[in-house]
Structure formats: structure tokens, C-alpha cells
């Protein structure tokens, strides 16, 4: 099975490179995004998870809203990341459809959870795909 794809979106290059390296070590295929192009990348790659930093060249909450408003990306898991550990921030992210909100600093637990979430998404997708194929075959047989 191919590695699950994860888009990492942040404008701090050292952070993106660090996460990219660690994600690759955790068996994920990390796609870095330094220019707030998470929406385009998601549409193109349909990743298992998008890691979206709140403060980047384009405001993270706007990116999330844009991403979720596209029907093709509606179901993509988005993990929001921020340096501000505030209830208000978490609530706004969750209200816009984020799957999780993680406060920086990001540690090893974050990557473990990310890998788990990504592989879960992938296996759900594979299952759904095989179910769809079975259903298609059944309709063809009948």
C-alpha cells in the first residue's frame, strides 16, 4: 500500500522541513506547503490529512473555510495547529470543520497521532473503495 499523503502547510520553512522529515520517518508521504496553497494541493492530491498552521501568509481560518467550502475537499481531515492555546481559537477551528486542534509546541505525540489518523483515513478509504467495487460488480451481475 502507498504511504498516506499528508500536506503540511506553514510559512515557517524550518518548521515545515522539520515536520516533513519527521513525518517521512513515521512512514507518511509529507507534502510541504510554504505558500498557503493548501487548498490547491488538497484538490490535486486528496491527502489523508492536512496539517494547517493558523498564522501563515494567508490566515489559516480563511484557508480552512475555503478548503471546506469545496465539495471535493469537504471530507478531508484537517488538523489545525497554532501557537495560541486559547479556547476561542479551538472553537473557531472546530466550528469551521477542522478534525482536531493542536497547540504548539508539536512533540512526538503529535506525529504519532498524525500517523494514526492518516492510516485510519487510508484504510477507511480502501474499505469504501472495495465496498464500492463489490456493489458495482453486484449491479453488473444482476
Amino acid at each position: 500500500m502507498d504511504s498516506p499523503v499528508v500536506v503540511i502547510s506553514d510559512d515557517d520553512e524550518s518548521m515545515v522541513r522539520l515536520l516533513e522529515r519527521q513525518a517521512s520517518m513515521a512512514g507518511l508521504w509529507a507534502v510541504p506547503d510554504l505558500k498557503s496553497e493548501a487548498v490547491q494541493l488538497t484538490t490535486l492530491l486528496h491527502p489523508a490529512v492536512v496539517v494547517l498552521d493558523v498564522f501563515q501568509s494567508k490566515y489559516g481560518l480563511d484557508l480552512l473555510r475555503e478548503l471546506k467550502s469545496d465539495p471535493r475537499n469537504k471530507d478531508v481531515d484537517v488538523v489545525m495547529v497554532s501557537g495560541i492555546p486559547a479556547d476561542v481559537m479551538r472553537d473557531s477551528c472546530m466550528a469551521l470543520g477542522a478534525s482536531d486542534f493542536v497547540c504548539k509546541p508539536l512533540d512526538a505525540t503529535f506525529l504519532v497521532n498524525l500517523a494514526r489518523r492518516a492510516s485510519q483515513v487510508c484504510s477507511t478509504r480502501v474499505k469504501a473503495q472495495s465496498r464500492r467495487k463489490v456493489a458495482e460488480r453486484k449491479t453488473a451481475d444482476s
Partner: protein
Amino acid sequence: MPKGLTPRLSALKDEIEGYARDYGLDFFETVFEILSYEELNMVASYGGFPNRYPHWRWGMEYEQLSKGYEYGVSKIYELVINNDPCYAYLLESNAEVDQKLVMAHVYGHCDFFKNNFSFQHTNRRMIDEMANHATRVRRWVDKIGVEKIEDFIDRALSLENLIDQHAPYIRRNPDPKKAEEEAKSNEKVEGFKVNREYMRQFVNPSEFVEAQRKKVEEEAERAKKNFPERAQRDVLLFLLDHAPMEPWEFDILSIIREEAYYFAPQGQTKIMNEGWASYWHSTIMTQRALRDAEVIDYADRHSGTMGTRPGALNPYKLGIELFRDIEDRWNKGRFGKEWDECDDLRERRAWDRKLGQGRRKVFEVRKHYNDVTFIDTFLTTEFALEQKLFVYGFNEKRNSWEIVDREFRKVKNKLLSQLTNFGQPIIEVVNGNFENRGELLLAHKHDGQDLKGDYARETLKNLQSVWRRPCNLVTRYEGKGLMLRFDGQNHSEKKVEL
């Protein structure tokens, strides 16, 4: 985890924000959050940020703040972060009048952060950046070990003030490509301008042109030999560029440097920033926001903030009084040639040209000045007399601290010397290959204040551990030239000619 505002506080915030905007304050969107006193102390001990890299000194500062609060010695009312949006923390247990005062004060700070020239180069997403730094340092801790990392951070922190406070405004290190082009164009020696071609031999004889060319070449050659080409005040940058560091050491030192540059403007504008915020909380509260029942409590809090301990300088008090003085002077036209040349005390006392330019002037001042230029320009003799400013010192004969001088010029100079370079000594890298042995030579620009011997030695030791080769520092001690040296094992010193 910080909480959002209650509906009541949210309504108060809207009210105070409305007043602030009416007065012409211009600030980033400001997000208020509520913290318990333990949480506020936690954030405050992190230098105002919710997340910082791990280091023992945060714990130490937290203990200090907590003890201060528990014993009733000190209390933090608010915290505000220079960020876009601005984040401000309110203390949960504060009374309503305190929250109003704090909000008005915070809007003053936010306006200052957004508009004062010193902050124009700061990272406005620093909350996030600090948290990223925390992630990076934690990663190194996991990889290298906490002992080594903490030890290096300790050493790096003792060097953090060796930055160029004015670097964001001056290009001291020109673009290398441009510099090369400029040098090439300078290489052509043409001598003096000649209007008539037949005069050339007389105005610029060939021997003269040749001598000039040689001189230019020699200078270029000498510059090439110097390393760095010119003295470099940003010692940390020099170390990052040239010291043989491990990748983790490089990363951590660059984090410390970046944070030092972020905090530098706050050190350079402490008096102005606090003065401006106090000016506005006072104006907004007394003119608009204060209810009758709150007057006494407000007066108590305000006077508590403005109170000056004997022998210490309160930046809130000095700042607010200077801003008020500027407003008053520009309202009455007490500036300019006519005012300066007026010797008649009676006339000066009654001077009022009814210009009404005060408010406009204070807004202009908050934009274009820092503490040094603010004090230098606006601290007048009248102001010093009115505020009873003086220089104090220790009288050994009487074994007590007492007023040494009330003379205006001395008071002002003392104040300015405390503020120049944020009160830190100015130290430059002069030679990175001293005596052709790869040693580091630093020079202290003496400004009347000798270096503290133990601090200097300790810093030199830390510098040596980063540079890996012996480090030398030339300074002036008790009027004589002195070179301090640490070779990795021992400290030594010798007299030098300055």
C-alpha cells in the same frame, strides 16, 4: 487554557474600544483572554508568551512571580503581546473597574506597537514563531539531551545582548554584490576634474594619479586582510556566520538571536510605551469610561501604578508626565525660537499662544521617537525641576545614599547614558583572526562606564566555548587600556595602549 471574555466583559471591551477609536488610536484587532493568576504568572514568566522553549529560568521566574503575588508584594494586571492580532491577557479575579482600566491601557500599547517606528521590523506573528522555536528546541532536546541543550542555552543567553540594536534601520553590512561593484567603480582613479583637456597634465600629473591608484589598491588589500572587513556590532551574527558550531548549536543560537531582536524595541521604548498606555488609560477612564462609583478604586489603582519609589525611576510616571508636558507645551505654543529665547520668567509662566496642537503632537511623537530621542528632545529644565529629578549616589563619608546632583544637564546625561544601547555595553568584533591564530578580538566602546569584571570574564568564557579558540576583549578600566583574555583554560589580562 485561556478563556474568552464573558458577555459582560465583551460589552465593556466594545465600549472601551469605541472610545479608543474615537480618540484616534489606531491598533491591530485586539483579542482579550482571561487567565487565573497562576496562568497569568505562567505566561508572564515566559516573557508574555504562552509557549517558549524549555529552560529552567522560566520556572525560576514563575516562582518569583508566584511568591510575589502570594505575599501581596506584586501583582500583574495585564499582559499584552506585540502581534497581529494583538493578544492581551486579563486577570480573572480583577474587579470590573480594573478590567476597564487594563483594556484602555492595552489599547494604548497596541496603538504604540502598530505605529512606533521601532516596531516596524518586528515579526507580527511572534506568538506562533515562539511556539515554533519551542518545537525546534524540544526536538534537539530529544536528540542531544536536555543537559547539553540547557547548558548551551545558558551560555547563549549570556551573549544575547551582543546584538546591534540599530541593525533594522541601518545597513551596516552592504549587499556583497553591490559592494563589489562599488569597489570596482572606485578602483578607477581619475584625479581632479579637468575642464580643458590640455590642463590635465598640470592638474593631475601622472605621478600623482599613480600614487593615488597605489593608495586605493593598498586600502583594498588591507580591507581584504581584515576579518571582518569592518568592526561588527552584531556579535551573534558574526558567530553564526563564522564560528565552528554543531547544527544544533547553530539552530539554538539563531533562535536566541531572533528573539533578542524581537524584544529589543520593547527595551528601547519602555518609558514611551508605558507612558503612552498610561496617558490613554488615564484619558479614556477620566473623560469617558469611569462611572461615579468607580472613581475611588480607579484613583487607587492609578496612583499605585504611578507611585515612584525613592531612588528608582518609574517609566510609567516619567512617560505619562512627559507626554502630558508635550501636549501642554504644544497646546500653549511653548516651543520654537521665540520660546527658547524668552528670558523673562513672568512672561514664560503666562505664555499661552492657544495653538491647540498638543494632541496632534503627542501622536507624532509616539510614532517617530524612542526613549533616547524622546528624553533628549523633550526633557526640559522646567520639567526636571517640576518632577524633582536628581542624580543620587553613595556618600562614603556619611555611609548613606543621597542626592548627588540636581543640575539639569547631569540629570539628563545620567538618564540618557542609562538608556543608550538599552543600558548595555557596546561591544564589537574587531578581528576574527587575531594575531593570525584564529583568535577572536572584541572591543568595548567605552561610554564612561567600566565593564563589570566578573560579568566580562564569564561572558568571555561563554564566547570562547562557542568560538572554540581563545577570545580577547579590549576595554578601558579605570582610565587605562586593558585586554582580557580567556584561552579555554585560564583567564588572563594585560595592559594595552588605546
